[in-house]
């Protein structure tokens, strides 16, 4: 066994898993607060990455100005979607709401094809290109710096949800909407905030992932593959999203390296199947008991 090789691929997998965790966080924040599974999360990521391309590439802004602008643009898009398309669906069947998010995804794909054409794109280089070594272990610089930037946002989010008034309102709404409403929490505003924060996390992940793997109108499919992470971790668990994101990233990479690239997805779906059998609500998800 080549332990150096194992260490290097593990490190690459864990770093990639950090980005998966960030996307999963986008899913979970929205689901936790609003009980909506947002199938358009990947397309929101894609849209933010295209915004970055427009700002940093087309308008030739500094990438470090373009990055926050693109991320804010993606989060505003999330807020607008919630206010104009999801809120009118309140009280409707969950399937209808899911279908609306699938429709939104389709619209966003059409929109980027219209504006930026269907050509595959690469984002302007903005992350350092010098190889990163941790001890003797090599880590691709884009993955390393992407992980670092993503981690900063993760920490900010965790602190915000734990200590801020907005975070407490969000957690209270997630626990019991009626009680939160009776305590004077503006539940509608919390819903909107959840979409804004969820989309913000996804947007940052979108730019960082696109910086590594390129961008095309089909980029949003990554959002769906991260659905595995969310189900394994538990749809309503932030901790679950983080742990499962890192674990699935590591597993995919190790399976790809030792078994071959064609075994990446089967490996993750095997884990998903096992988790669903043992804990249908995910590793850290809420086990809801429905009494009739």
């Amino acid at each position, binding site marked *: 066994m080549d332990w150096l090789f194992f260490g290097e691929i593990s490190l690459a997998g864990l770093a990639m898993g950090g980005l998966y965790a960030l996307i999963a966080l986008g899913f979970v924040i929205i689901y936790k607060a609003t009980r909506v599974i947002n199938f358009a999360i990947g397309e929101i990521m894609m849209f933010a990455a295209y915004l970055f391309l427009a700002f940093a590439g*087309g308008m030739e802004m500094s990438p470090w100005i373009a990055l926050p602008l693109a991320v804010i643009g993606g989060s505003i898009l999330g807020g607008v979607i919630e206010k104009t398309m999801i809120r009118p669906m309140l009280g409707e069947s969950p399937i209808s709401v899911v279908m609306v998010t699938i429709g939104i995804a389709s619209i966003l794909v059409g929109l980027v094809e219209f504006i930026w054409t269907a050509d595959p794109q690469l984002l302007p280089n903005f992350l350092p290109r010098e*190889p990163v070594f941790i001890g003797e272990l090599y880590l691709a610089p884009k993955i390393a710096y992407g992980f670092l930037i993503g981690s900063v946002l993760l920490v900010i989010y965790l602190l915000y949800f734990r200590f801020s008034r907005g975070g407490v309102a969000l957690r209270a709404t997630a626990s019991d909407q009626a009680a939160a409403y009776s305590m004077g929490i503006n539940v509608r505003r919390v819903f909107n905030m959840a979409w804004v924060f969820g989309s913000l996390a996804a947007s940052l992940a979108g730019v960082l992932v696109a910086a590594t793997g390129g961008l095309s109108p089909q980029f949003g499919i990554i959002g769906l593959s991260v659905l595995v992470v969310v189900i394994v971790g538990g749809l309503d668990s932030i901790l679950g999203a983080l742990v499962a994101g890192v674990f699935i990233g590591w597993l995919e*990479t190790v399976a790809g390296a030792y078994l071959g690239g064609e075994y990446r997805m089967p490996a993750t779906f095997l884990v998903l199947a096992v988790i669903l059998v043992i804990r249908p609500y995910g590793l850290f998800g809420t086990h809801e008991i429905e009494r009739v």
Partner: protein
Amino acid sequence: MFRNILKKGRRLAGLGSLVAALTVAAPTMAQDKEPIVFGGSIPLSGVFAFAGIHIHAGLTDYTSWINSQGGINGHPVEYVMEDTAYEVDRSVAAFKKISGSSSPATYYGDSTGFMKAIASELNSQGNTLMSGASFATALTDNEAYPYQFIPGPNYSQMFGIILEYIASQGKDGDMPNVAFVYSDTEFGKDPIENGKARAAELGIEVVEEIVTKPGSVDVSAEVLKLRRVRPDYVVFHGYVLSPINEFMVQMRQMGLDTQFMGTFWSSDKLIIDKMGADADGYMGVMPYNYYDSEEGGPMLDALRAQAEKSDPEAGYRPTGYMQAWFNAMVWTEVVERTLDAGKELNGDNMAEALASIEDWDTGGIIGIPVTVRDMSFPVGRIWRVNAEEGRYEPVSDWIHLD
């Protein structure tokens, strides 16, 4: 920026209206003869739209050009197409609709999947000769696909040309080694087994095989595997852009002096436009001259003039455009040969005419005379990116496989 967006929008809107019209008719011609129809399932939207738009432009422009030359033996040409979004079921539906209403003599298929799916119907109808975007090795099986051909070398033949080039770079007792990197798709896997067999024949060791998802997000683990075997050459297949860029950049960051090569769909100028200086040295196998190459010839000059005339602002035309034009050239040649022989335009006669093509001068589209072998044109040349000049330059002679 916004002016650019508007400009692109207008161009796309123009395309949209073309799609809505569904047909691009030949200019009115003072001819009484029945039109010859080129049909097409064209991916103007969906994952292959980046190429489909140029394929459509190539077929449209060729149709205009051939009609300006008097059509085929006096028959005007009509190009009838539908957008398929690169979905097999929509491609099949488009074929049924077009073949029902317009009786196309020849047809452009947008994918290997479609061309395989439609084979039984094509064979039972026996009226239409088909080629298209696919260079799949399987389609050169004359038993199963008697009315389909490949407008260039098939993917296995492309690997053959690449491997011959690699072998030519080796010195006695010091043959370069190679790694294959391909996508986990039917497209990606197509030439691998034949490629390994050909490499063994040439004495080239395949030191690693890497399979990735088509638009793989992160390939750093795969790059680490390649670092351990330090291949002299990496041959990519089954990609358009990503993750080729990441492999090249990361392997160079590690100090490897590996050379990188790719097949037809991985050898467009898109690689240079998007990767910039990082693309320098990348090599691709290409059966046609690039639009901006220094090569010339009557047909290549006609292509450039027609492209300029139809859209003066478009500038460079990608390989999809060249490929579509060549498809239509072959269709024309086949129809002409069939009509000249006084035969009916059906699948058998056109397939026979195609098989009779030998030492055919393509007027500069391909740099040497070409001969059809097993319903394909097994010819190509290795081109290398000169990033400073922003184009591919030839680094080998034309290689015609037997």
